[in-house]
């Protein structure tokens, strides 16, 4: 085998590893940044509104209006604040100190008891925060429904709307958004380690002129490529272990899959990420350009188009089509499944197949573009 000598490969890998360990900035990115990012994603990005501040304006002083207010105050999702007038509460809504205003008009009780009329309840939400507005609407209608049921019960009748949709959650019964956001953010972190770090390595050799020295040795293309891939692959795996440990023990996210499968999926994803980073590095031969390109070609897609926060099926079709080309998409889906559902093979096989294809594609393209020539 003269295209691959274990002795040379070992020496090259050792050299690359020394370089990694010596540069404090790469150690910082591989070990410290993931932990910080996991904490920030884990605690900072929470889509579970713990208690929404909602203003309540009661323009009717009857006992019925009081019963409604009680239902609102009793909701575990709402922190209600009383206001004196509609205008005052709308000003608060505008300033962002409450996220919704519930108004009971003066004729609330009269129309409630009139029989032929319906008692109006008005909810104003802050449309500048559309997601929050959706939740405000759903929490207030929940409290409203409870009030209606209780009232019907007290009068011995059936509750007015005859059909009730009862929610039941599978996999994440307490609906903690952290449980799906954190596994997804591991994909972003792996992208940073895989693509951003490697985008610099080949370019650095060119910039510092050490590539010429390397090429004057009998090193082969395969050895050169492997010596760049293997140490960073190892770095990625170690950093994945740190991520899993922090996720499970510190952030308390359940892990239901097997570590073996996680290892295979991670390896396949690292294949694409490392391949992409090395390709950019090989093509640009300039550290700054390569980092910039990696940011736009790897990091942004992994954040925006992988489905880790933003739902892919809600995007317009051309953008949905683009997401199929992004390895992070398959990795996010595999991670979310492994953490929350366990081994769901039909999902995992599909993701692993795509990850394998994409790894082969990027590494193959890099091998093709790696030349043993100076120009």
């Amino acid at each position: 085998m003269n295209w691959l000598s274990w002795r040379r490969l070992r020496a090259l890998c050792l050299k690359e590893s020394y370089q990694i360990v010596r540069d404090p900035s790469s150690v910082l990115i591989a070990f410290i940044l993931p932990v910080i990012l996991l904490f920030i994603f884990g605690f900072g990005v929470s889509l579970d509104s713990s208690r929404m501040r909602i203003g309540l304006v009661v323009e009717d002083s009857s006992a019925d209006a009081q019963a409604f207010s009680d239902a609102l105050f009793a909701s575990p999702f709402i922190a209600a604040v009383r206001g004196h007038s509609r205008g005052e509460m709308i000003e608060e809504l505008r300033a962002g100190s409450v996220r919704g205003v519930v108004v009971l008009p003066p004729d609330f009780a009269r129309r409630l008891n009139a029989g032929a009329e319906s008692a109006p309840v008005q909810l104003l939400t802050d449309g500048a925060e559309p997601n929050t507005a959706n939740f405000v609407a759903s929490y207030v209608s929940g409290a409203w429904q409870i009030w209606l049921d209780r009232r019907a019960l007290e009068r011995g009748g059936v509750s007015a709307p005859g059909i009730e949709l009862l929610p039941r959650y599978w996999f994440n019964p307490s609906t903690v958004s952290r449980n799906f956001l954190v596994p997804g953010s591991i994909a972003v972190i792996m992208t940073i380690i895989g693509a951003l770090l490697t985008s610099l390595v080949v370019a650095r050799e060119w910039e510092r002129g050490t590539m010429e020295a390397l090429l004057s040795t009998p090193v082969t293309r395969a050895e050169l490529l492997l010596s760049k891939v293997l140490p960073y692959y190892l770095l990625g795996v170690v950093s994945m272990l740190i991520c899993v440990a922090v996720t499970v023990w510190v952030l308390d996210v359940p892990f239901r899959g097997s570590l073996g499968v996680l290892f295979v999926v991670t390896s396949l994803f690292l294949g694409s990420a490392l391949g992409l980073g090395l390709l950019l590095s090989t093509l640009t031969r300039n550290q700054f350009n390569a980092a910039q390109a990696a940011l736009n070609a790897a990091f942004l897609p992994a954040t925006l188009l992988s489905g880790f926060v933003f739902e892919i099926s809600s995007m317009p079709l051309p953008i949905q089509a683009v997401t199929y080309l992004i390895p992070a998409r398959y990795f996010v889906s595999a991670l979310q499944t492994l953490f929350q559902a366990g081994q769901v093979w039909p999902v995992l096989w599909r993701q692993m197949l795509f990850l394998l294809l994409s790894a082969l594609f990027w590494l193959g393209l890099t091998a093709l573009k790696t030349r043993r020539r100076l120009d």
Partner: protein
Amino acid sequence: MGYRLWTLILKELQGLWRDPQGRRLLIMPLVLQLLIFPFSTTLEVKNSTLAVYNQDGGAASLELLQRLAEARAFPRVLMVHSDSALRQVIDEQQAMLAIRFPEDFSRRLASGQSAPLQAIIDGRRSNSAQIAFSYAQAIVVNYSAERLGQSGRVPTSVLTIDNLYNPNLEYRWFVLPSLVAIITTLGALIVTALSMAREREEGTFEQLLVSPLHPGLILVGKAIPGLIVSSIQGSIIALAAVFCYGVPFTGSVWLLYGSILCYGLSLVGFGLMISSVCSTQQQAFLGVFSFTVPAVVLSGYMAPVENMPVFLRVVSEADPLRHFIVIVKGLFLKGFDFGLVWPELWPLLLIALTTLSVAYVMFRRRIA
């Protein structure tokens, strides 16, 4: 002195614009983000699949099913015929919401009893699935009220929901003003943090130091191009938001530029701080990256600040982006006047003052 400063600023701007690589750096991310962000960063639920297991088959169930199928949120309805098939579609993420009609659904309704429906929600995507659930719930409540109306009774109470500032809850109206803030951030930071590192790497920094410019003026000369770039990029996004994406602008343009200026100052402070500890462009780049990601995450753009634990909420007070996003969104959608802008503006000024003085001290120490 004014003239010397002017020539320095001119030199910086020429340096930014002269080489094609730098030009690409200023324009490409802007265009890319303007094209992709508004479409991809959405928490709306559209085009999702609804799975239905109809064990009933009665008239009422078919009627309700028809309405669910017509809803904009669920263009595809997947019919399943067994419990195991239902489990499978949720497990394999073919649908994130499934509704089961029990056998006695139509019978109970016909006899005037209340009829429960079961909704199965995929907790792996809890946010989207909860939103999909709320759409389905709204359809069910409507249908229920209509049935009641047909039987000649009126509902006891009606809940009307008005979304102020954004009546149809267009997610794009939320994304684009935030984008003005995020893109301004990247522009200003990259320009200020990298320019100093580039001078160091290329060895021109010493030349700058021996020029008759006072160190403070060198910093000002490095800061102003960042301000110029960020306000131009901000203006482009703001114009695109209003004219291409149809987002209303209800505040005053002067307040917008005043705030962009204050925000730019606070960013330039961070940029100069990063560049004074870094000796290469690569380090500066990683520094900008390490600042921007947490700044965006903690800004309230990805998730509301009030959902964060107290500790992070305190940290986010030092994040200029958090304050600026509130101002920009207020100016676009909520018709903010000075009284409403000020509570977010003074923290920006305070951050700017702190970071700029720290950057100045670090710079003096480094050249001493």
